[in-house]
């Protein structure tokens, strides 16, 4: 079948799937950012053992594929009496892994803050928590925007793995269409183009944000 005609017929069926990809990606990205900040806070404030625990966590998730936590949560949670929907399980797995990467990104940015600022914060009597929230975190987040953008693109692409736990996001939709229509490559070319569009959009969004909020 001619590619243009194929898109005209089946194009609209992608819309719901596109919505699922967008929702899981945005939800997981927000969750991962919060979890990454929490891990950073633990690393900075919970003493040597806190830092070691975060290190071990980060190493574990950096050296294992995302599919494992996805399967773990999806298969194991119903067994321990938590029959959560697949989207929640998949999203949680993405949050756990990307949070590990994000905490490392943020840690790199903490080192870019001038030590003098910590002395200054202490000399005006800021408590440790206020120092973290009002001095460290805002700067760290702004410094990290480009790297966070890269991580968000990786997360967006990893949402395709949620098709393995039967979530009808873009990749699953393409698979279903291929099996229903027998069209060998049309479905996946459309999906690849949609991913390229989403990835480029994400990159532009982060670049614009960075330009808008960085200090000059």
């Amino acid at each position: 079948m001619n590619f243009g005609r194929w898109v005209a017929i089946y194009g609209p069926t992608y819309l719901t799937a596109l919505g699922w990809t967008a929702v899981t990606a945005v939800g997981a990205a927000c969750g991962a950012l919060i979890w990454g900040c929490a891990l950073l806070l633990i690393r900075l404030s919970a003493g040597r053992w806190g830092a070691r625990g975060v290190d071990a966590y980060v190493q574990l998730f950096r050296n294992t594929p995302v599919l494992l936590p996805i399967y773990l949560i999806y298969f194991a949670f119903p067994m321990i009496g938590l029959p959560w929907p697949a989207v929640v399980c998949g999203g949680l797995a993405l949050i756990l892994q990307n949070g590990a990467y994000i905490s490392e990104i943020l840690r790199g940015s903490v080192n870019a803050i001038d030590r003098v600022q910590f002395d200054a914060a202490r000399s005006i009597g800021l408590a440790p928590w206020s120092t973290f929230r009002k001095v460290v975190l805002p700067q760290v987040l702004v410094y990290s925007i480009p790297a966070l953008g890269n991580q968000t693109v990786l997360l967006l692409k990893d949402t395709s793995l949620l098709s393995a736990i039967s979530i009808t996001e873009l990749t699953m939709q393409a698979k279903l269409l291929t099996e229903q229509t027998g069209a060998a490559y049309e479905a996946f070319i459309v999906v690849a183009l949609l991913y390229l569009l989403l990835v480029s959009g994400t990159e532009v969004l982060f670049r614009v944000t960075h330009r808008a909020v960085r200090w000059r």
Partner: protein
Amino acid sequence: MPPGSLALLAQGAAVSLLLAAVAIVGGTLLAVLLAALAFSRFAVVRAAYRVYVYVVRGTPLLVLALLVFYAMPALDLRTGPYIAGTLVLIVYTGALLAEVFRGGVLAIPRPQWESARSLGLPPVPLFRKIVAPLVTRYTLPPYVNVCVMTVKASSVLSIISVWELTLAAREIIERTFAVFTILGLAAAFYFVMCFGIDRLGRLFERHLALKGFAGERA
């Protein structure tokens, strides 16, 4: 632990490592060619390089894998998931490594080019004596990162029914429901492979370091 599962997982790990090794070797060769295209004198070739990298890096590996998996039989290439999976992994690793190598070439200090030119070095010795040794040293840490990513990415091929560590784990779980044990063991196998590659890379980095060379630790 279900009997026999450890042996199955170990076999799966061996297949994963083999897939990754083939992809890394193939991807490195592909990446050297691609990086050469990135510095071509013709704008069309440079644009083709950028399109390749943009498309491969902007699409999930799973989508590429499924595309090739479904499209190859339609093109009358009945190759099965292993060939399709390996090819896709090479294409993917090649794109990532090409960007790594391109960055390495850009990092070569200007005086190196100028002195090479003033010596009148022809292209092949220039590559062999100047570009290759420097780029190897500059890019070793990101190169090792991509190798680790390739091991992890090979797990995606389980979805197009390439039997490796992740698919082995999934099959055992579907039979025995021993989710925590099996996934924990699979994670341990992946961890050993990835962490091992990382440590090997660091050893090699120390081995290659040139004492007293600018930018290297003395």
